[in-house]
């Protein structure tokens, strides 16, 4: 009996992703308009979408369960790669040039780490379903998360590390971690927060300080404030595509990545921004549905991890554009310009589709 079927491939999910990422291309075109250095970006983003969809379908065809046997080698390889980037890469190639070196790879190690964490932690917790009350389960899971998190943080990629932490939390939660452990972890995190503060570098601390007290640094706050003005001045229907004064006169910075949501809200207004949010919500709804219908715990936890990443990055970027959350430099999933983030998301959706194709009919 065939255990998978293309009929169960989530075509609606693919369609929503295609619509959303095309929406992104159109808005990137508006954002980079008139900038000779970035004029090529919409076309490049389109190429990434096509490549990403191909990657998604290829991965979907592959049985994710086969990966279950290789999680440990994959995990170790991942750690090695991160160490190479963070430690060796820095000393050999200098602070900047490792990007050039790893530019040969389509997906950066820290993005790949999100996929690997989903696989390894998912497999570990799926195998220990009967022992979710055992502190050893919690401890083992933490030991899996800690090295990968530390290496990404040291890269330094604070945003990436936070995403990994949230991803891990969602996996633990969905795997059924006892509430008493959840509270214990919450209390521990709170107690350790001063230590965490000391680990941050000055830029990251400044961002947090500005978030708490916007007036502290008028120059840095400028970006956040201008994003707020862009969103607010959009009104119901916006100023028209390519007509946003904040975007087109460059009051809004890094428009094609961090602040793409502000461009949309300014030029297409509440209607345009709501459509974007509903598309994201639709994608998340499909993901949660696949998680519920997944054939096994391993698959379910993979889907939960992907949903966690999409949800968290959406909240953070949209919140940042409305001055609700600090500036992190995370991309808005499927929309912000950037092949690395997009290909990594498509790879994850490939795994999700692989799970979807193997789910049982509901009944």
């Amino acid at each position, binding site marked *: 009996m065939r255990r998978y079927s293309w009929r169960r491939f989530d075509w609606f999910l693919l369609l929503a992703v295609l619509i959303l990422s095309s929406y992104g291309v159109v808005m990137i075109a508006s954002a980079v308009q008139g900038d000779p250095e970035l004029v090529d970006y919409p076309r490049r983003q389109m190429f990434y979408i096509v490549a990403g969809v191909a990657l998604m379908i290829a991965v979907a065809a592959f049985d994710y369960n086969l990966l279950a046997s290789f999680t440990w080698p994959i995990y170790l390889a991942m750690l090695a790669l991160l160490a190479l980037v963070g430690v060796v890469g820095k000393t050999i190639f200098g602070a900047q040039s490792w990007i050039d070196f790893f530019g040969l790879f389509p997906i950066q190690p820290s993005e790949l780490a999100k996929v690997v964490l989903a696989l390894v932690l998912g497999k570990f917790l799926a195998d220990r379903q009967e022992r979710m009350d055992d502190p050893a389960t919690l401890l083992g899971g933490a030991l899996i998360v800690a090295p990968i998190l530390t290496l990404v943080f040291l890269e330094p990629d604070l945003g990436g590390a936070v995403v990994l932490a949230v991803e891990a939390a969602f996996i633990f939660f969905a795997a*059924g971690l006892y509430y008493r452990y959840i509270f214990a972890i919450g209390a521990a995190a709170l107690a350790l927060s001063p230590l965490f503060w000391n680990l941050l570098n000055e830029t990251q601390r400044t961002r947090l300080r500005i978030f708490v007290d916007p007036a502290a640094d008028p120059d840095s706050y400028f970006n956040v404030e201008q994003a707020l003005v862009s969103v607010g001045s959009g*009104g119901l229907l916006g100023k028209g595509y390519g007509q946003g*004064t904040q975007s087109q*006169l460059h009051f809004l910075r890094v428009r094609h990545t961090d602040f793409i949501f502000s461009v949309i809200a300014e030029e297409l207004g509440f209607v345009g921004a709501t459509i974007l949010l509903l598309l994201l919500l639709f994608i998340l709804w499909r993901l949660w549905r696949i998680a519920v219908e997944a054939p096994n715990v391993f698959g379910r936890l993979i889907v939960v991890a992907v949903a966690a990443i999409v949800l968290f990055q959406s909240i953070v970027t949209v919140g940042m554009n409305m001055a609700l959350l600090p500036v992190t430099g995370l991309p808005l999933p499927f929309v912000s310009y950037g092949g690395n983030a997009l290909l990594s998301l498509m790879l994850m959706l490939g795994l999700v589709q692989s799970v979807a194709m193997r789910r049982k009919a509901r009944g």
Partner: protein
Amino acid sequence: MSSRSDRFLTRIFLLQALTVLIFIALLGKLASLQFGRAQAFQERATFNRIRVVRPEGERGVVYDRDGRMLVRNTAAFEIALIPADLPDDPDFVVSQQKRRVLYEELTTLINQALWEVSPPDIEFEDDGKAVPSRRTPPPLTFGINEPPSPSVMSVDEIDQLVLQREAGSAFQPVVVAENLPRDVALRVIEESYRLPGVVLQLQPRREYPTGAKTAEIIGYTGPIPQETMQSYLERGYNADAWVGWSGLEFVYEDYLRGKPGRKVIEVDVKGREQAVLGEAIPPEPGKNLILSLDMELQEAMFQALLNGVNSWRSESAVAVAMDTRTGYILGMVSLPTYDNNIFADGITAAEYASIAEARGEPLINHAISGIYPPGSTFKMVPAAAGLQEGVVTPRTRLNAPGIIYLPNRNFPDNPLLAQPFVCWIYKEGGYHGDVNLKEALAQSCDIYFYKLGGGWYVTEFEGLGAPTLAEYARLFGYGEPTGIDLPAESAGLVPDARWKRIAKGERWVTGDTYNMSIGQGDVLATPLQVTLMTAAVANDGLLFRPQIVAAITDSEGHLVERREPSLIRELPIESKWLDVVREGMWMAVNWEYGTAPKAALPDIVVAGKTGTAEFYDPDIPRDSRGNLPTHAWFTAFAPYEDPEIAVTVFVYNGGEGSAVAAPITRDILRSYFDIKARDEAAGSRTLLERMEALQP
């Protein structure tokens, strides 16, 4: 199994609920921003991009009577850096390294271009054949002959300024090099295309070709002073505009400035103009001024005064020339002077202070702001008054020994307490004897004027008396500003009993009248007031309100307005009496016993009056015989038969008027009549005459 499955579903349901709640929250926030506060944010977005600019019109220029340019507009070239466009790196150290390399390259480029365009003067010390010309600056001029020198900042200075500026307004350019020659600036810009953030700026700049020679008249412009900012802003000025600070630049500000335009523009985040919204109103250029000043004469006056004064180590001096028929100022020199071009490039507070506080106060126009005892030049006032009031006739002779005594008011019988009044000639061991008015003027006989002013108790001769003397002094224009079209004019002082009671708490005594009669005591006058008096004597009693600007034209040279001197008053003195005074002045120059033979010209008949006015200055010691230091005065008109010019020369602490001021006056008159003869021979006309000939 089933409980585990239920737990999964519960957990995922919770996550789904969380997702929905978060999205509802985000949508709520979005709605509150885009509905609730849309208008406020739209206003802020508009404020971001819309600027109303009021470009200033080009400032008017100034010509002398023959159309020589005294003020023109040029541009100063600057190289600047926009901090926001400089190379940047998240790592501060790397960023600094990159920038310093850029600064280094840029400054090298500028210095190289400067060197190649104008290599610095190198004075070779050769083997004693040619002595290197060491220019010593003239002692009475400040900042002259120094064309605005290019200045280039050092890498450290740039670094510091950029860091400062970046914290506040990163799009505001930081000027790195200023006052560059045009060739250098253009070349630097051409060659710095690789260097991001480097821009060329043009700074409109006033240029004064005649510099120090006319600085006190023309004045200068500067940024709006903080304390008067509000009133300028109300008149529609931009806060960074330059306005007239002194001289004609100040007085005629409203004409020179023109009308600013108005333009609504859309700017990008760097403040760069992207589009003009609506219709722009272009600025209107300012009006031009045509002066009555004859620059050729002004230069001759400047030179004559400088020559005359340099040999006397005086700290300040003045020469004024006025057309006695019209009241127009033909020339006005005040030493020490300064080059007003140094203000055109902006001046530091320290530089300003060093000029403003220099010896002799170069920034002050002593011709109209300086007040000094007029000394014997004042004698025309009691002379005219005495005749008009019938106190004396031309034939009245008064006895003038070298010294007379006024008895003490309280002890009239004690000769030891009597106050002596001496004539200048007494100090040389002489006396004038019985003299009439003309002789008294010609010889500057002090005793005659003591008696004429204050009476003489021995012969029971009734003098003019202090009130009448003061009245005539005021009629001649003393004691109030003349109203010339220049700023900061002084009133001078005509003392009287009331003034003395208030200022000194003392009673007016006959001795005061005596001193006043010879222009000493508390009488104070500006050189311009003395000139006005001489002109009124020369032109038979017309006291003009002097004027420097003769006409105002629009930017294309069309006559807009003629400015003619108005009459302050016609003196209530009969022509025959003024005739006598003129004759006295003629005798001073042309009679063998006159005081001013040095003012005579061979071909032109000159009439004048010397003045040697004592003054008290704690810094200037008395001479070996205990005499006070004196200012040298000479005031004259010419030609005697048909007067057309009045000239007054004043030399602070200059000694004898006859020895110092009279020859300078002669040189000035010489130049005036030479220029006139040459112009008449060539048939040349003044700018105004030429303009009027063009009009139907």
